[in-house]
C-alpha cells in the first residue's frame, strides 16, 4: 500500500526555495498522522551538495535527479523526474510549494499518474490515516476542506503559511541518485532575466509594505521604499497603480497578482477592494493607513491609522529606525 509523503524541492540557480523547506517541514509533521516516510526529491544539474543540506529537515531519504538535461527548467524533463520519483517511492501524498514552477509542473504530473490535486493548501486536517486539505477559495470569501478517494494525491502548499523546522543537531539520512531520462522535451526555458525591483520575493517576504492610489503618484514610491528598507520588507502594490503604470506588475498583490501571507502587511492608501483582499487577507497582522475612516480596508486591518500616508509613512520609518538603533 502506498504510504508516506514525497516532497518536491524546488531549486533555481543553486538555491533552494524557502517555501520548499516549509513544505518539507510540514510533511514531517503530517507524516506522524498519515504514517510512512518522508522523501525529498531535488532535480537539477550539480545539485548533490544542495541535496546534502536537506537532512536537517528530517526526511528519511533524499532522492537526487541530476544531469545536464535538468539544468534549465522544462516542464517535460521535470515532469519525468517527478513522475519517476513517485514511482520509485510510491507515496500516498506528494507535497510541493505553490510557486510558479509548481503551477506549471505539479498538476501535469498528477494528470499523468491519474491522481487528484489540491492547490494552495493552507491547513491540514486528518481522519484516521488520511489527510484532508483545507484551502481558501472564492478570493478568500470561503474555505473548502477536500477529502481524497485515491491511493495517490498531490497538494501544493501556500508559501509563508507553514513553519520551517530545522534540526540543530547533525542529522543524517541516505541521499540516493535516481536515474531519469529527460525524454522528449517539447518546450524548454531558454532564458531567465532577473527583474529589477524587490530584493526580497513578495510571496516569501515576512513583511510587505504596499501602496495604492492613495500614494498620489509614482514619484512617492521612495517614501514607501524607505519604510521597506527600515523593516526589511518587500514592496507591494494594488492593481490600480499597476494599471496606471506607476510600477511593474510583479509587485501586484491580489487576485490578478500575487497571493501573499506575510507576518505583517502594511497597506498604504489602498481602499481594500475584494480582489486586493484576496491576495493578502491571510496575512497575520494587517496595518491600514488611509485618510478615509470609512475605507473597507479598516474592516480587515488589525491596526488602523486614519491619516495621509505621505505624512504617516515617513514618521513610521523614523520610529522603526529608532527602534532598531536602540536594539
Amino acid at each position: 500500500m502506498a504510504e508516506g509523503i514525497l516532497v518536491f524541492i524546488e531549486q533555481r540557480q543553486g538555491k533552494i526555495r524557502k517555501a520548499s523547506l516549509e513544505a518539507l517541514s510540514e510533511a514531517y509533521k503530517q507524516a506522524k498522522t498519515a504514517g510512512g516516510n518522508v522523501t525529498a526529491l531535488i532535480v537539477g544539474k550539480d545539485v548533490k551538495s544542495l541535496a546534502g543540506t536537506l537532512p536537517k529537515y528530517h526526511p528519511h531519504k533524499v532522492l537526487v535527479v541530476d544531469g545536464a538535461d535538468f539544468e534549465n527548467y522544462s516542464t517535460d524533463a521535470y515532469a519525468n523526474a517527478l513522475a519517476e520519483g513517485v514511482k520509485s517511492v510510491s507515496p500516498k501524498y506528494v507535497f510541493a510549494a505553490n510557486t510558479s514552477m509548481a503551477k506549471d509542473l505539479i498538476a501535469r504530473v498528477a494528470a499523468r499518474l491519474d491522481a487528484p490535486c489540491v492547490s494552495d493548501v493552507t491547513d491540514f486536517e486528518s481522519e484516521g490515516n488520511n489527510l484532508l486539505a483545507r484551502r481558501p477559495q472564492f478570493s478568500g470569501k470561503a474555505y473548502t476542506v477536500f477529502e481524497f478517494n485515491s491511493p495517490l494525491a498531490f497538494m501544493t502548499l501556500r508559501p509563508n503559511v507553514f513553519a520551517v523546522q530545522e534540526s540543530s543537531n547533525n542529522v543524517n539520512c541516505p541521499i540516493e541518485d535516481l536515474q531519469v531520462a529527460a525524454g522528449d522535451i517539447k518546450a524548454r526555458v531558454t532564458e531567465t532575466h532577473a527583474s529589477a525591483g524587490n530584493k526580497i520575493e513578495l510571496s516569501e517576504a515576512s513583511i510587505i509594505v504596499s501602496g495604492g492610489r492613495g500614494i498620489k503618484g509614482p514619484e512617492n514610491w521612495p517614501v514607501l521604499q524607505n519604510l521597506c528598507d527600515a523593516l526589511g520588507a518587500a514592496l507591494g502594490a494594488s492593481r490600480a497603480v499597476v494599471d496606471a503604470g506607476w510600477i511593474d506588475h510583479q509587485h501586484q498583490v491580489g487576485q490578478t497578482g500575487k497571493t501573499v501571507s506575510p507576518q505583517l502587511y502594511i497597506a498604504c492608501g489602498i481602499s481594500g477592494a475584494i480582489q486586493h483582499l484576496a491576495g493578502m487577507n491571510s496575512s497575520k497582522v494587517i496595518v491600514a493607513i488611509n485618510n478615509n475612516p470609512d475605507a473597507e480596508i479598516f474592516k480587515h486591518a488589525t491596526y488602523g491609522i486614519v491619516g495621509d500616508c505621505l505624512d504617516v509613512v515617513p514618521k513610521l520609518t523614523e520610529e522603526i529606525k529608532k527602534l532598531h538603533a536602540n536594539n
Partner: protein
Amino acid sequence: MKIAVCVKAVPDTESKIAIAGDKKNIDFNGVRIITSPYDEFAIEEALKLKEKNGGETTVFSVGGAEATDVLRDSLARGIDSAVHINDEEFAGLDPLSTAKVLAAALKDGGYDAIFCGQQGVGGDNNQVPVMLAELLNMAQASIIVKLEIDGNKFKAEREIEGAHEFVEGTLPAVFSTQKGLNEPRYPSIKGVMAARRKEIAVKNAEALGVKGQFTVESRKVKVKEMALPKERPLGRKLDGDADAQVKQLVELLKTEARVI
C-alpha cells in the same frame, strides 16, 4: 490554423458568497455569472492569432445552463463557433475530471493552439490547462504574459518569482494566460447581435464517449465541507495625532503582535 479556447463560467468576483445548505458548494442564488477574467486574455490571444495567421477559432466550456451566456460572450467578441459541454454527470467536476472531459472534446480536433485562462476564479485551481496539455500530450507554456508564434515554433514569456523566463517550444501547445498578455476587446453591438443568432453546439457525456466515467462515486477528490472564513477580530483604529498614532503602532507591533 485551428485554435481552441476554454472558458469557465464563474461567479462575479464582487459577489457576496454564501454557503449552500449541503455545505458542499456556494449558494448560486442571485450570484451573477461571468466569463472567468483570465479567460478574456485567452479569447483575445486566440482572436489575435487568427487575425495574424488566418484559421478558425472554437470556444469550449464545460458547465450547466450558466455556461450558455459565457459562450455567447466569446462569440460576441469574435470567436467563430462554440461548444457547450453539458451533462448532469459533469456537475461539480474537480480539475482532473474537467481536464479529461475537455480532452475528450478536443482530442480529434487537430488544434494547433489551445488557450486557457491561468486560473478559473473562485475555484482558483491553476490546474486544468496543464492537465489538459498532459492528456493531449502537447507542449505547454503556463501563466504567460507574452507570446510569439512563428510557423510551428512559439516563444512565451512568464513571470516567475523575482524574474521573467522565456519558454520556447513547438506547436501544438496549450497556453494559459495571465494579465499583461493583451488588452481584451469588448464585444461590439454588432458582435452581440450576431452571437445571438449563432448556434451553440451541445455535447453530452454520451456524445463524447465518456458516459459513466464521472459519476460522483468515482471522483478522486471531493469537497468534504465548505465554510465562511472566521471573521478577523475587529481591528483597532489608533488615536491621537499622526505622531502619537505612529508611536502607538510601533509599540503594538513590537509587544502585542510581535511581528517586528
